[in-house]
């Protein structure tokens, strides 16, 4: 996969992930062009289109479009399910996800994506495993906060400290 874009029906970009090195100018140009192309398509049309020398796979979930650019030999249908799995992950994490969740917690959306896809390829397709990794990180924070509240003034010193890397 070369990149993934999330944008709203109004064409506002909500998340962008680039797996190939491109200049900021190029990224903006691609985004503008692709958002326009996809928004112009009618609901019943197919989810795949040839765009430049890439294949674009997109799907709309409520007010949000998820759009991936893949290479020629890549599989369109499985990419469509990559999108779906990502939506499922967001949904499970936020609990019935909506566009606002992604706006206000954009950093979480990035973290979840990084657990699921890395370098444009699936890293972990198990929903449970991905969510476990994310929740673990959240717990880590809460745990640290908890510790800090318990032992005011003390700081967790070593990352190797077993109290910091709680196994769940």
């Amino acid at each position, binding site marked *: 996969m070369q990149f993934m874009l999330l944008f709203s029906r109004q064409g506002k970009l909500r*998340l962008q992930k680039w797996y190939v090195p491109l200049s900021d100018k190029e990224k*903006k140009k691609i985004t503008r062009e692709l958002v326009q192309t996809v928004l112009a398509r*009618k609901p*019943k*049309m*197919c*989810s*795949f289109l*040839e765009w430049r*020398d890439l294949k674009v796979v997109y799907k709309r979930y409520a007010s949000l479009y998820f759009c991936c650019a893949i290479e020629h*030999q890549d*599989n*369109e*249908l*499985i990419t469509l*399910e*990559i999108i*779906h*799995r990502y939506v499922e992950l967001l949904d499970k*994490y*936020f609990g019935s996800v*909506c566009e*606002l*969740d992604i*706006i*206000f*917690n*954009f*950093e*979480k959306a*990035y*973290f979840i994506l*990084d657990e699921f896809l*890395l*370098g*444009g*390829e*699936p*890293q*972990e*397709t*198990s*929903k449970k495993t991905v969510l476990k*990794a994310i929740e*673990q*990180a*959240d717990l*880590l*924070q*809460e745990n*640290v*906060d908890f510790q800090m509240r318990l032992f005011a003034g003390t*700081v*967790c*010193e*070593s*990352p*190797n400290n077993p109290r*910091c*890397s709680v196994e769940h």
Partner: protein
Amino acid sequence: MPAVSKGDGMRGLAVFISDIRNCKSKEAEIKRINKELANIRSKFKGDKALDGYSKKKYVCKLLFIFLLGHDIDFGHMEAVNLLSSNKYTEKQIGYLFISVLVNSNSELIRLINNAIKNDLSSRNPTFMCLALHCIANVGSREMAEAFASEIPRILVAGDTMDSVKQSAALCLLRLYKTSPDLVLMGEWTSRVVHLLNDQHMGVVTAAISLITCLSQKNPDEFKTCVSLAVSRLSRIVSSASTDLQDYTYYFVPAPWLSCKLLRLLQCYPPPEDGAVKGRLVECLETILNKAQEPPKSKKVQHSNAKNAILFEAISLIIHYDSEPNLLVRACNQLGQFLQHRETNLRYLALESMCTLASSEFSHEAVKTHIETVINALKTERDVSVRQRAADLLYAMCDRSNAKQIVAEMLSYLETADYSIREEMVLKVAILAEKYAVDYSWYVDTILNLIRIAGDYVSEEVWYRVIQIVINRDDVQGYAAKTVFEALQAPACHENMVKVGGYILGEFGNLIAGDPRSSPLVQFNLLHSKFHLCSVPTRALLLSAYIKFINLFPETKATIQEVLRCDSQIRNSDVELQQRAVEYLKLSSIASTDVLATVLEEMPPFPERESSILAKLKKKKGPGAVSVPDLEDGKREGGELNGGGERGPDSAAMSASNASTPSPSADLLGMRSAAPMSAAPTSAGSLLVDVFSEAGPAAPSAAVNDDGFLRDLEPPTETSGLSSELQTPVDSPFNASSRRFVCKNNGVLFENQLLQIGIKSEYRQNLGRMYLFYGNKTSVQFASFTTTVSCPGELQSHILSILRATKPVEPVVEGGAQIQQVLNIECLTDFSEAPLLNIKFRYGGALQNLSLKLPVTINKFFQPTEMTSHDFFQRWKQLSQPQQEAQKIFKANHSMDTEVLKAKLLGLGTALLDDVDPNPENYVCAGVIQTKGQQVGCLLRLEPNGQAQMYRLTLRCSKDSVSLRLCELLAQQF
């Protein structure tokens, strides 16, 4: 406020985001952002040290602002500081900022790499993963330099956690993609391949992307992955849907991994090991079977995942192209999708079938779906699906269905989306040409194409129809008639005018018998379009007009009138003006014979790859033109212009195909590559050539009709001489050199490869001969050498020096011409001719050619004027029997007075009037100049028109000369 704020909610960030969202205008948003940027700047610069939480919050705000599309030029240092925080979320935000806003500041990079190094060696899996994610996200060369050697170690180490292995595998993949030279697998190769056997499905899923990429680049080193991949695939395919627990997606076991495994196998040929192959075929059959089973869920995710595997399996089956059963099964299953209610499946089925159509095993099976596909072309509401349908029709086209498919594509063109019209036009043109059995159909199709989508008909398309019409004489009449009819339309496309002008200019005579398309009607029809056309088209029409003057002398006055009018002859466009002036001059000066030669019908074009196909390939990129085109090209290739190379190459279309900006690449422009004119020149300079040759060769052009005109004709007599001819013809004079007894210029030799032109001039006992070697092919001749030899005693009689001021070039490029000059000195009289031997390599084969050079004793004649009295006195002086040579022979050529006179003048002697008492007879006198002596010669030719016989008598001061001249001349009349 956010619906959910899990973990570490940052209240300040949420407030800021809300503010931005509440901005009513872009200006308000920018104002709010600038306020925030100023605030953050002051915080970062402030004396008070910020705590980790605040730093994280501000860095996060900067990130948000950047993602809104604004530039961020500070905060990098604070983000880097966060990397070394012990708090996970602070570190996480730091890494996120670095990943999104990569900065090339080298000091920063050093700090970042340091932080990553620390985390990688921390042995804390969560931190290690964060660091690996960052490397994978940035993927810069600096990072590759720092970590490319470390990561493989992490990947294969026994004690590495699974999640870290997964990140390491994909991190390495990213580095390999950006800096393959820095990622050296070497010793790790085998252990990486064995990750395919890993217990953890997540590890296999991540590793397979890496292995696939490495296998594509180094297939040999990784080929052990094939059997591992097959057994892994087999285990997945045969597992029950619950076996793989969370790796089962909507009842489909490990769909991502299955697709990746099938994709990996496509990097290799079918497994050689029978057992492995058997197992794989079993897997593929199972996949095809499962796709036919009733769905376990109505969810689209279930069918998508299942079909993703099916399509990938079909790709592998097509890649192997060796299992006819599987290919046909695949085709049938795809056939079911063609009418599926899911647009996505219809789209993919059309796409996949395109490749199936190229396999000989499944081509027929694909063809059975033609009606469905045509229906898709007509009814699909999505242009991208229609495009796929058009592609598939193109791919499944063969002789049996070509007419139907071309007709459907033509009718689709009328409503086709603008974006795909040009490609459609090319495809229709290619199919029409490739599968034309009957050429009137081909012509109809192309003209329809121009009528329906003229704007999208590129030059290549209309050039091609002209090439074909010119090469096929059975279609010329039909083409003329059809194009004439098409031009009747009140509004017709300019491309139609071009084709019409060209074809009527060449073949208008074929329909001129019908009073409805009489020459003048044709002309008026063409000329009615003239003023609406662009300059290049008008230039072409002017050339068509001059061709009309030749074809139909009765149009001459009308056309001259047109050419003469100010809008032509003083046209502001140089090209048009030049043509008008030259054509007008040509039509008024040149005799009908000259016109007939200059404006002769175009010779056939040499066979070459269709320029349209080349264009389509260029348009679609290499490899994108589906395979059957190429294969069919081989299988049925060249059938349209089956004649192969015939006649002289006139480089015509190649000049225009190169899309020279010059508009002269048409009718007469093409003639410019004709024999004697050197490099490709415009029509104008050809005319100059013609006249300049006429000049010195004979003072009066009218007399010269048998002379230079023949030079321009494609030589017919020489065509028998082919390149296989290794030795010169035994007869005293071979056909080609016989033609040069009475003339000095022309085509000496011509075959499919080579044309040799000759120009010579003689003075006293000296001569100079220019040889022009023209390469008619598009391939260069290598090791091109020429030698001139004088057989037998000729050596001492003639001194011919192959001193071409420089020797001939060893290489003659395709389409090029090189020149050689020979200096000749006549020492004493001679009867043999010097030999010219030419050797060169053409496409690896050595070509060897020997020719007689047309150097004959008469070339050294000096004409001698004398009175009747003097003539007969000399005649009597030369009365010894050996001095006279006489021959009585039948006329082989025209006995016309002017023709005979021209020949005798061409001989080099003076033609004496009022000498012979019988005015029917011809007498000539001249002196042959050799180095050592002068030989006086008298000639008398007595024609007998009734008997079609001649008596030729020669008396020379040297016996051998009389004999030789008599021999030479007897063949000329």
